[in-house]
């Protein structure tokens, strides 16, 4: 059964090929069957692999499957090999499980779109690439999947390419992530030249043996990998592409730009954690990047009007939490938050998709309102997702994962009170903007009637994800609440435990109470501001400084403006100044002189035999002269 592992990425790729080659002939139903069915088969295989994997001996269960040698260049022989261990198993299950739900949802959501087959072919290609990314046993194959998901992200953001705004958003996402990808590629070159391998386990073993902690090489390698992770996971300073990526269809936002692809950076860092442990400054940078991003994005999310942009900034902010966890060495806490985040953020996006479709493609929350009674299933599931995102204590999955991160940040030797405080403020912001979204969308007065288009294929995934958004947290119960750390225990063979300072670990109970209170306080404040008539918030917004702050946050802290002025405009200006291309002059001159030479030579071709004879004579005289005089 374990040997079926290769089928998990292969089946979505097969689905992609079928849809690309025969998509037009399949019809709507056939497309949906192939598109959703291939993911369902892959998911079934992925779950069927779990029991035999758990039956493997030893605590550090590993199954590797080498399919073939990719290329052979001297000693450098990367393989197409898959590696299943606790970490990639969790990633694989989350990716396939969430994918199948979102595909089912999409089959209804995209109904009536002329690019139905195209949509599912891209989505299948994405799932296949993502599975290659998480299952790869070497960094080169991982990079292949990494680029594959980037390509699919670009294709799907610009899915409705007839509107130039969407196409531009796709291009922006592609170019901005490319900056990070380039850093990652250079990092791979560095590792391959210095360690002689890209096999992940081998390179980590060699790095630990050959590189001294804190020396220049591991710092360079880890910093370059971090560059790639920052680009893909939309962290500071490359976060600007994700809010614009919401131009794509909503299921795409749910799958790629919330649940799976954007967390690839988190996975990369967790996968190569030994390198980061060897480079403490870089690891600290990871934590700082995470903390700064979660605060910045949280503030921006507070001011957005577009429901999908709120969720986009929220995603950036939550991935900031994962980076914070990685930065303090709480590897499994980051993966735990990845898992719960995948569930509740996919749920929120899918719920938002239902709302948008019912509101006739309206994205502005303030045009919605009062949907609580019209869309009860969506409302309750959305509420559960929001509660999980806001980390409502005890009952939600988000509480357990975020609490673990906050606790580890506090108690880890690499963390500290300041990072913890950033996380706590971020938690307050999270519950504020989340319930602002809930109250504005579902409470208050009703602006327009829903279209009533959401069928069971759209509500079923919502319900399943809502259940997961609650129960997924119970796999890791902290010492104060049952003390059942199954999840971190399961990941322990792959990801080492946090290096905690014992004295700080005693504060767990107090920290949890603080986090719980902050979460509830955020909900209460947003109820005060947005629950009723919003008199307070309107009065608040009249103040000029509030207006300026709001505009600043709304524009994502002006990063777009900054990059536009620092990078885009100079390049555009230069391109304009050089529109007659200086370099082209050389080649134009070459073309001109050869054409002139041709003209001159063709003039000698008179067709008159006597002229040729004269030419031969003159040539002979010249050659003879040269021979005689030299």
């Amino acid at each position, binding site marked *: 059964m374990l040997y079926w592992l290769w089928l998990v990425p292969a089946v979505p790729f097969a689905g992609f090929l079928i849809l690309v080659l025969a998509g037009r002939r399949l019809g709507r139903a056939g497309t949906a069957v192939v598109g959703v069915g291939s993911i369902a088969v892959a998911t079934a295989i992925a779950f069927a692999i779990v029991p035999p994997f758990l039956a493997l001996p030893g605590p550090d269960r590993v199954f590797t499957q080498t399919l073939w040698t990719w290329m052979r260049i001297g000693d450098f022989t990367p393989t197409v090999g898959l590696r299943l261990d606790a970490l990639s198993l969790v990633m694989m299950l989350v990716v396939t499980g969430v994918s199948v739900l979102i595909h089912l949802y999409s089959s209804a959501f995209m109904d009536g779109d002329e690019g139905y087959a195209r949509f599912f072919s891209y989505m299948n290609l994405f799932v296949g690439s993502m599975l290659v990314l998480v299952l790869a046993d070497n960094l080169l194959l991982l990079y292949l999947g990494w680029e594959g998901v980037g390509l699919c992200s670009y294709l799907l953001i610009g899915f409705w390419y007839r509107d130039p705004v969407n196409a531009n958003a796709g291009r922006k996402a592609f170019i901005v992530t490319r900056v990070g990808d380039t850093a990652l590629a250079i990092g791979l070159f560095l590792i391959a030249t210095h360690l002689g391998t890209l096999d992940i386990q081998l390179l980590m073993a060699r790095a630990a043996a050959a590189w001294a902690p804190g020396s220049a090489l591991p710092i360079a390698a880890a910093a370059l990998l971090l560059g790639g992770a920052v680009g893909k996971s939309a962290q500071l300073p490359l976060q600007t592409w994700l809010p614009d990526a919401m131009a794509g269809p909503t299921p795409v936002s749910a799958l790629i730009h919330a649940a799976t692809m954007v967390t690839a950076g988190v996975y990369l860092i967790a996968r190569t954690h030994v390198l980061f442990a060897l480079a403490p400054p870089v690891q600290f940078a990871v934590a700082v990047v995470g903390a700064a991003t979660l605060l910045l994005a949280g503030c921006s999310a507070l001011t957005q009007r577009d429901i999908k942009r709120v969720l986009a900034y929220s995603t950036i902010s939550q991935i900031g939490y994962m980076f914070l966890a990685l930065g303090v060495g709480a590897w499994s806490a980051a993966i735990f938050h990845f898992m719960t985040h995948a569930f509740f953020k996919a749920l929120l996006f899918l719920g938002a998709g239902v709302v948008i479709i019912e509101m006739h493609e309206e994205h502005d929350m303030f045009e919605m309102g009062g949907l609580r009674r019209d869309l009860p299933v969506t409302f309750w599931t959305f509420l559960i997702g929001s509660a999980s995102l806001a980390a409502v204590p005890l009952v939600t999955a988000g509480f357990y994962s975020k609490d673990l991160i906050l606790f580890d940040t506090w108690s880890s030797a690499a963390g500290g009170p300041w990072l913890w405080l950033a996380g706590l403020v971020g938690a307050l912001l999270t519950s504020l903007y989340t319930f602002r979204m809930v109250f504005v969308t579902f409470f208050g007065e009703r602006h327009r009637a829903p279209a009533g288009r959401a069928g069971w294929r759209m509500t079923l995934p919502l319900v399943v994800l809502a259940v997961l958004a609650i129960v997924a947290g119970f796999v890791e119960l902290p010492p104060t609440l049952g003390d059942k750390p199954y999840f971190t225990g399961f990941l322990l063979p792959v990801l080492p435990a946090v290096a905690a300072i014992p004295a700080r670990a005693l504060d767990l109970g107090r920290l949890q109470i603080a986090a719980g209170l902050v979460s509830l306080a955020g909900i209460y404040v947003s109820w005060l501001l947005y629950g009723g008539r919003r008199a307070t918030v309107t009065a608040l917004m009249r103040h000029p400084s509030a207006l300026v702050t709001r505009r600043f946050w709304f524009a994502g802290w002006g990063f777009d403006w900054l990059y536009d002025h620092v990078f885009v405009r100079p390049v555009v200006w230069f391109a304009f100044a050089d529109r007659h291309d200086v370099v082209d002059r050389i080649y134009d001159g070459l073309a001109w002189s050869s054409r002139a030479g041709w003209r001159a030579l*063709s003039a000698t*071709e*008179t*067709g*008159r035999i*006597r002229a040729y*004879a004269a030419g031969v*004579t003159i040539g002979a005289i010249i050659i003879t002269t040269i021979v005689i005089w030299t």
Partner: protein
Amino acid sequence: MGAVPLAHGLVVAALLFGLGLLGVLVRRNLIFILLSIEVMLNAAGLAFVIAGARWGQADGQVMFLFILATAAAEVAVGLALALQFYRRLGSLDADAAAALRG
């Protein structure tokens, strides 16, 4: 039998060759061009014979026989071409055949 000095013989050959060449270049009639070529060939043959006489070798005369044979063949082909030329173009003006002008 007084030997002709090498230089004299070569000067005569060069003059002959020059006359032939001049004929090729200035005459437009194809027949005269062929005649001029014959003159040039004989100039070359004369140079061979003179050089052979100077060094007492038979090679010069052998080469002249070769040139005679070649010239005979050339005239045969050349006259046939001239005949065709006249049939096609209605004249023997060499400049009339300029269809390959570039």
